């Protein structure tokens, strides 16, 4: 019950905030007579969104696919590497410090090269998304797996769990909270990668809509696409929160580390 009440209150706060922002936005555009290509009134954005809803949806689907595929590739690779890093000592000593360093390298600079290699297709966007999202997920997964203490290992063994059982029935669950916060970071980063790829070379997707409508000074479409993108990313991050809530229900980890 407490959870539901909390959710309702949060929904209320969000609704009020959105309403307030919309009101200020509307008031600002009607008082100061700003050019509509700079800041269109909310009504214009609403018109663009509703009259061309299928166009928005098609492009949003393209971008969402790129983000999710990028995230999936990054997660798969990160989990594989993390398993290798925590189980093979040499790999950990040789590779993991590099991965931590690589986390802060400006990988976005490679985007124009990816466009040269793969053109306007979805590939450069997915590669960019997974490249940026990979490192934080990897680091978070390794940190999570490292949280499996000697005592927990002994406890698992005392229950008769072999190495495989220890890993899959115990260690993974210990690592889950940290892994999920890695995923949460990864979602936003994958979105940045996908949209950046679309900015640099594409013929569809929300990023494509944003750059073209910015160039054509089409305020309604520009704001509509930006808002769609923001809502989409926010919803994806929230989905991770919900997954966390469900997976860690009733555990101590569910209340934080």
């Amino acid at each position, binding site marked *: 019950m407490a959870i539901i009440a909390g959710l309702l209150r949060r929904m209320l706060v969000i609704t009020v905030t959105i309403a307030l922002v919309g009101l200020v936005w509307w008031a600002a555009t009607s008082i100061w007579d700003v050019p509509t290509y700079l800041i269109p009134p909310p009504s214009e954005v609403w018109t663009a969104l509703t009259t061309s809803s299928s166009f928005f949806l098609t492009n949003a689907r393209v971008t969402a696919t790129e983000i999710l595929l990028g995230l999936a590739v990054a997660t798969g690779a990160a989990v594989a590497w993390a398993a290798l890093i925590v189980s093979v000592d040499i790999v950990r000593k040789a590779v993991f410090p590099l991965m*931590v360093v690589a986390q*802060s390298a400006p990988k976005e600079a490679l985007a124009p*090269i990816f466009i040269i290699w793969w053109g306007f297709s979805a590939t450069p966007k997915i590669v960019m998304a997974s490249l940026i999202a990979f490192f934080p997920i990897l680091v978070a997964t*390794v940190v999570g797996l490292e949280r499996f203490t000697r005592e927990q290992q002994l406890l698992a063994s005392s229950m008769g769990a072999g190495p495989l059982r220890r890993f899959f029935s115990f260690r993974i669950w210990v690592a889950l909270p940290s892994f999920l916060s890695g995923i*949460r*970071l990864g979602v936003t980063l994958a979105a940045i990668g996908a949209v950046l790829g679309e*900015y640099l070379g594409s013929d569809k997707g929300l990023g494509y809509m*944003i750059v073209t409508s910015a160039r054509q000074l089409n305020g309604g479409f520009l704001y509509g696409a930006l808002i769609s993108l923001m809502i989409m*990313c*926010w919803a994806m991050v929230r989905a991770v929160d919900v997954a966390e809530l469900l997976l860690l229900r009733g555990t101590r980890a569910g209340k934080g580390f």
Partner: protein
Amino acid sequence: MRTESQQAASEAGRQFGSGAIGTSMSLVLPMVSAIVVGLIWFGVVALFDIPKYILPSPETVVASMFENRSALFNEAQATGLIAITGLALSVAFGVPLGFVIARYKPLRRVLMPPIVAIQSIPKVALAPLFVAWLGFGAAPKLIITTLVTFFPLTLATIVGVESITVTTSQLARSIGCRSFGLVRYIWFPSAAPYIAAAFRTAATLAVVGTLVAEFVGSAEGLGNLLLIASGNRDTTLAFAAILVVAALGMVFYGGASLIARGATARLGSEYMRSKTT
């Protein structure tokens, strides 16, 4: 929530990056890997006869770097200037804002949810909007860079202040530490490690933010050079520019680490002194 994994990352950095292996190794390893990557790159290009416009060999990239050194230097300077200014603005406003939010509970309850929500939004995606508003000058780039680096610093400051235990603040109050003194001698030293970690992250984010803003709309900077080079299918120059971006990122990260370490050490000793007197 996000700060947890940031913390985890820095924890990992401490544990594996320097602590367990040693600082000399953490310098040697990237160098060794750079050499290994260079060798693989060289081998792949030589072995598979890859055309130059797809993947130029490392020596032609280095030659191009040398040939275009003045252009690369100028563009790196332009990018670096924007990144530093944006970072400085974020520190100047983001950290004090963090203290203010941490200080006033009602403010925190109102502002924390949007700040956390903003963290999950890809802010660099807003670049085309600012370019449409403000044109190809420095302003949109500066706004993007500040926007990208601002919130991690604010959030870290808040988390840092919240890490202060009740006993510490009660003790401080009992010895007559009030408003300014409290901020200066208790809050700032306690939040300093958090701010330092966020500052290091923000320094690399600043380079990335400026670069992306330059991709979207700019008449100068490394991002612009990269776009022009890739538009001309001058992949060699593009790779040269990428290496310069990577170097700039390292300079920013290294510089930020030094500044952060210096500031934390200094404030830490001040903290000790204030406790003994």
